[in-house]
């Protein structure tokens, strides 16, 4: 009996010693031991392929006297760029890339029977195509595929000019457009004469054409503004190649819908741990999340704004251009993802980092406006600012109507900005594009518009049908 009691007692003591040891060992974390942060790097959408990170502004095909323009969103544009990328990366011998002079390029352009041009803004890093050691930080602003007799070449233009010989016609056969969209290049100069009601177009060789200003002689647009219009001729110089369609451009107003993103997933993407983010419901319907350092505000309209004035990673040396782009698209994939038709619209230097802006193509037109698309400020490897407002096309509000002629749009832009342009009696045109405009404060509809960008005034958006400023 006594022995049994000793056995039970011993078992009891062994068990209690195990329990007490466990309690002593695990009950007190070390002073600086914290909860291990859990990063949930879950992509909303997979990062785009390299050839989708920077896409050309447009594709222009020259064949004899005919020129065809394929803008972003056009299916032919997408096909041509995908094929061009394939040719560059798979069929061309990148090991034989060579530097060229300007005159060599000019000679090649003169002898070519056809050419396909892809201009880039922002620039395409050569490192995306070629070996990083060879490419360095070279940025490409234009890629031109040339068809000459038994000679097929591609020129890559940036600060330097590079060329690559293509093996045979079969290699670039797929780069011949299968659709048409005739266009004309803008002349190098427009002269608006309010007194005569005429617009004259000139190139380097002299007068190309004279047209009556809109609504016949006297011009409806000029008439409505003649009181404030100074007499004489006004000039618009075209600083670079700009193409416009010869056929009618049709468009219609559309309603826009909010892209719903899982709010919890979005908050998780920005914060180390969801339990660290405190939620503040603001009086205007916005919801703000903060951990005391970073702040994420989700507005009732769906707009997302994130600021992180003190990034956790102190490494803030600017990344190279190509790495910045890759980091930018990766961040975009994590913080909400890409919608179909999203493209990199602009890249700007911003002190210790770079600012990247993405826009979307809706119904073949780029949606522009202060709150359209997404903006990311990358400092070092960290996103210190993000503003995202991707919208989806909803129902069509009105019937399709043609865009007013581009000459009328230029004339109207000139008149609207005449005070600022008075000194020079003219302006320098940087770009002219048909777009969708998202009015600030009324984000429920997109209005087709001419986007006229003068070097002196910035971009002006004009209603596609009434030419009223937006």
């Amino acid at each position, binding site marked *: 009996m006594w*022995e049994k009691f*000793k*056995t039970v*007692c*011993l078992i009891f*003591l*062994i068990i*209690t*010693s195990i329990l*007490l*040891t466990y*309690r*002593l060992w695990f*009950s*007190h*974390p*070390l*002073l*600086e031991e*914290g*909860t291990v942060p859990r990063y949930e790097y879950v992509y909303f959408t997979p990062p785009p392929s390299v050839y989708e990170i920077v896409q050309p502004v447009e594709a222009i095909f020259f064949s004899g006297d005919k020129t065809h323009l394929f803008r972003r969103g056009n299916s032919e544009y997408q096909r041509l760029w995908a094929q061009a990328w394939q040719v560059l990366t798979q069929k061309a011998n990148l090991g034989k890339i060579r530097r060229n002079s300007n005159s060599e390029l000019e000679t090649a352009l003169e002898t070519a029977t056809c050419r396909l041009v892809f201009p880039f803004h922002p620039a395409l890093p050569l490192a995306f195509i070629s070996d990083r050691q060879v490419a360095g930080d070279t940025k490409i602003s234009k890629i031109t595929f040339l068809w000459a007799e038994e000679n097929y070449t591609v020129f890559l233009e940036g600060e330097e000019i590079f060329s690559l010989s293509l093996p045979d016609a079969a290699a670039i056969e797929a780069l011949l457009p299968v659709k048409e969209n005739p266009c004309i290049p803008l002349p190098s100069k427009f002269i608006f004469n309010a007194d005569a009601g005429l617009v004259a177009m000139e190139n380097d060789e002299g007068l190309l054409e004279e047209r009556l200003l809109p609504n016949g002689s006297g011009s409806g647009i000029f008439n409505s503004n003649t009181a404030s219009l100074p007499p004489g001729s006004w000039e618009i110089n075209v600083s670079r190649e700009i193409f416009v369609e010869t056929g009618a451009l049709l468009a219609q107003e559309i309603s826009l819908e909010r892209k719903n993103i899982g709010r919890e997933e979005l908050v998780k993407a920005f914060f180390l*741990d*969801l*339990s*660290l983010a*405190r*939620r*503040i*419901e*603001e*009086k205007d319907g916005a919801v*703000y999340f903060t*951990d*005391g*350092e970073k702040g994420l505000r989700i507005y009732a309209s769906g707009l997302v704004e994130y600021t992180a004035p003190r990034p956790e990673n102190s490494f803030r040396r600017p990344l190279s251009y190509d790495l910045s782009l890759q980091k930018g698209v990766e961040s975009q994939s994590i913080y909400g993802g890409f919608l179909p038709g999203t493209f990199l619209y602009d890249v700007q230097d911003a002190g210790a980092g770079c600012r990247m802006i993405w826009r979307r193509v809706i119904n073949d037109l780029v949606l522009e406006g202060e709150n359209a698309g997404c903006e990311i400020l990358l400092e070092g490897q960290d996103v210190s600012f993000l503003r995202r407002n991707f919208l989806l096309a909803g129902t069509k509000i009105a019937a399709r109507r043609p865009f007013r002629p581009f000459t009328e749009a230029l004339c109207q832009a000139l008149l609207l900005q005449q005070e600022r342009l008075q000194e020079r009696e003219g302006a320098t045109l940087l770009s002219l594009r048909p777009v969708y405009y998202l009015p600030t404060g009324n984000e429920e509809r997109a209005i087709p518009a001419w986007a006229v960008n003068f070097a002196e005034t910035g971009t002006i958006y004009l209603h596609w049908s009434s030419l009223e400023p937006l």
Partner: protein
Amino acid sequence: MDFSRARTVLIGMFLFLNIFLLYQIWQDEGRGDFLLPGRKEEVSRLETALGTAGFTLDTSLPKGDMRLAHLVVEPWPFDAVELITTLQALWEKEEGPVPLVEGSKQGAGVAEGEIKYSCGGCNLLVKKEGLLVFTANSKEVLTPELDNQEDILNIAAAIIQEIPFMQDFVVDYFQKTEKGIVFHYRQGYEGYPLYGGYAELSCGEKGDRVLSLYRLKPCHLATQEREIISPAAALLRFLEAYEPETNEIKQAAGEKKSIIEISLGFYSHGYDAERWEIPPVWRIRIDSGEVYYVNAFTGNLER
């Protein structure tokens, strides 16, 4: 082998081991001075850091190993006219009918988005983020030579017991100043201090009173719990953030400061919002009157 003898020896050894373990647990719970070498080292590191920063720790460290969640709060709904008439009647004790209440969005000391109410000699300034500032002249003057701490705390409690809309506040601490005495009150939620909801009553020697009231409506604890940092870790983080200021003060005063309180509660500064979450914090109070809040999740100083 004599199994019976072996069992007896083993019983003795395990008994000794268990007593040692129990004693160690008892020590770890703060009821003794003995520490394991690892913990001893950490505490000594904390003491060194405190000494380097010019602090002494005049309070024991509370227990910190627990899980907490954010506290969801809303702004307190109030009727400004009712509040000012109540306080006017309580403090001014004027006989006759209650004076009319006048509200103004303009005037001296009234910023944009603020409203000032007047009722007799009592004023109420409603600030944008919900802070209420009452000023009045009370008929009751506190005796300036109050010395007994308990008496002062009893007076502080008695003052708020009279005010109907501050019944759920408790006395936090008080400070004597040149012009009188300042009582600090706070709200609470489920046994935890709610430092985010507070009241400061400044009583001048001539009966002038200023009551700053920021009251919250606590709703519930958020669902997602998380382990909080220990008070020692909070102190170390506090010292990291406080160090630059300390050097200046040390040079000026040449005196050591003393940490007189470290306690766990909920705090965030005021928001002009519908509803928000406030984090658990370690409140660190210094004998100079400075109060700091260290986020008990992130270790960041809540500014």
